[in-house]
């Protein structure tokens, strides 16, 4: 249990005066896959933002990749963030960069050699079926294509922890299936994955342990 990649202990989050999360305790082991479920406004996105180190807990203890985030210095967080991939609900692609350059961003930040970047980005874009569109800018891509670029960017540097916020929202059935295959593959390779969704069909088709929120509180958390 000590090798948990994600561990929350009595975590609360206030945004302004609003108590967004309350008393969240859960642990996810290395390579674990969790659905993050709950109605709209339950706090799924907020929990993912905590795990992505965009926010710090107002209370409680948060441990990521074996590090106590509360005790870590601010300077230690970038190194941690580079090991965490995030698929944002609104994609957050940079509009002035091509699909290729958007996906290459994490590798360039990590200082990888350009030759390796060319190969890796080409490969991952082929995997999400966008190799032919890699020089397009986000404005020229459909919602589903943008989402696939966002997914490619999140997994390009083989993160230890992958977070996804409603990643199937703009995908058709076949694309959603492909995404689930990719996630299954990454999970087998040891990536810990948390996927927030309210798509019951896909959850039913891919049964996995789930964490359920309602009104900022933990309803249930499968081991």
């Amino acid at each position: 249990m000590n090798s948990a990649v994600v561990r929350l202990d009595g975590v609360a989050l206030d945004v302004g005066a609003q108590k967004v999360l309350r008393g969240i305790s859960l642990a996810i082991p290395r390579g674990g896959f969790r659905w993050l479920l709950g109605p709209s406004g339950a706090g799924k996105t907020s929990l993912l933002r905590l795990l992505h180190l965009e926010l710090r807990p107002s209370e409680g203890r948060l441990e990521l990749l074996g590090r106590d985030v509360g005790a870590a210095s601010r300077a230690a967080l970038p190194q941690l963030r580079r090991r965490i991939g995030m698929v944002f609900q609104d994609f957050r692609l940079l509009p002035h960069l091509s699909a290729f350059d958007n996906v290459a961003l994490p590798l360039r930040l990590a200082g990888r050699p350009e030759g390796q970047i060319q190969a890796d980005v080409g490969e991952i874009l082929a995997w999400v079926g966008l190799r032919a569109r890699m020089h397009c800018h986000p404005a020229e891509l459909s919602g589903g294509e943008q989402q696939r670029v966002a997914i490619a960017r999140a997994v390009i540097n083989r993160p230890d922890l992958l977070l996804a916020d409603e990643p199937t929202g703009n995908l058709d059935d076949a694309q959603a299936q492909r995404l689930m295959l990719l996630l299954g593959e990454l999970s087998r390779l040891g990536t810990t994955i948390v996927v927030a969704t309210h798509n019951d069909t896909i959850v039913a088709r891919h049964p996995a342990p789930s964490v359920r929120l309602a009104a900022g509180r933990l309803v249930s958390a499968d081991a």
Partner: protein
Amino acid sequence: MRDEEAQRERAAARRARRLRPARSDDLGLRRGVARKLMPFMVAAMAFLASLALAGAIAAAAFSRQWQEGPAAALTVQVPDPAARATDAPQSRLDRVVALLRASPGIAHVDALSHAQIAKLLQPWLGSAATQGLALPAVVAVRAEGAGPPLAEVTAELRAAAPGTLVDSHGDWTRRIATLAHSIQALAWAMLALVTGVAAAVVTIATRAGLVQRRDAVLLVHGLGATDADIARRFAARATRLAFAGGLGGTAVALPVLAGLAALAAPLIGGIADPAAWMPALPRALWLGLAAIPLVCAALGFATAQVTVRAWLRPLP
């Protein structure tokens, strides 16, 4: 309607592709409004800095010129020079010259001959008038170091040759020195002011750039970019733009300074050569002017670094 929109979108996309950023421009820094304005503002500040610097250096040269030139000189008038001195078997003039030569702080003593004085006065008095005139002797003295102890020397000379006048030009020197120092102080104040304004311009441009690219900055921060990574990109850009601005402003100032130098040359002891491509500017000014673009670049770098890091600090 929709077609038109699609067309516009495609055109925008084509433009965007043409502008496809280089590797280092992940944040799209090349597209900022600040980019267009900032170098011109910095250029204006560099122009003013060039003038201020020239003012400071010219004032220094001017004041030095006066301290070594007329300032360092005394003029001693001895009436009735051929009469006998009161304290020695010599003429009053010889006695005055001897006393001056013996005094400390005096480099050179030069008694003007009667003919020389007559020649000096001729334009005013006419040659006939100077013939029979009882002219005083005039002794030109060059001081050295702190100069002679004026009060003592004057008393000594008057004892030997009553009626001797000592003119030390001291008042003028003091006034010129005060003027030069005021000009210098003003020039340094202006340099400080201009530096402050330039820093403010870079700060504002950098903050505008941060706000304009807020989403991109937050994204790369979330992807694990360090504050140093992000600050470096903004600072690299600000350094280049400020350097270009500094270079431009200094270049524009050059012909202005050359013109002023040509006018001022006789006053500060230089020689204006009308055939020269440019009048000789003092070496210190050349060095100062060369430093301005570098100082601008350093200012751009430091200001952008500080601004970006301060902006990022509240982020987790």
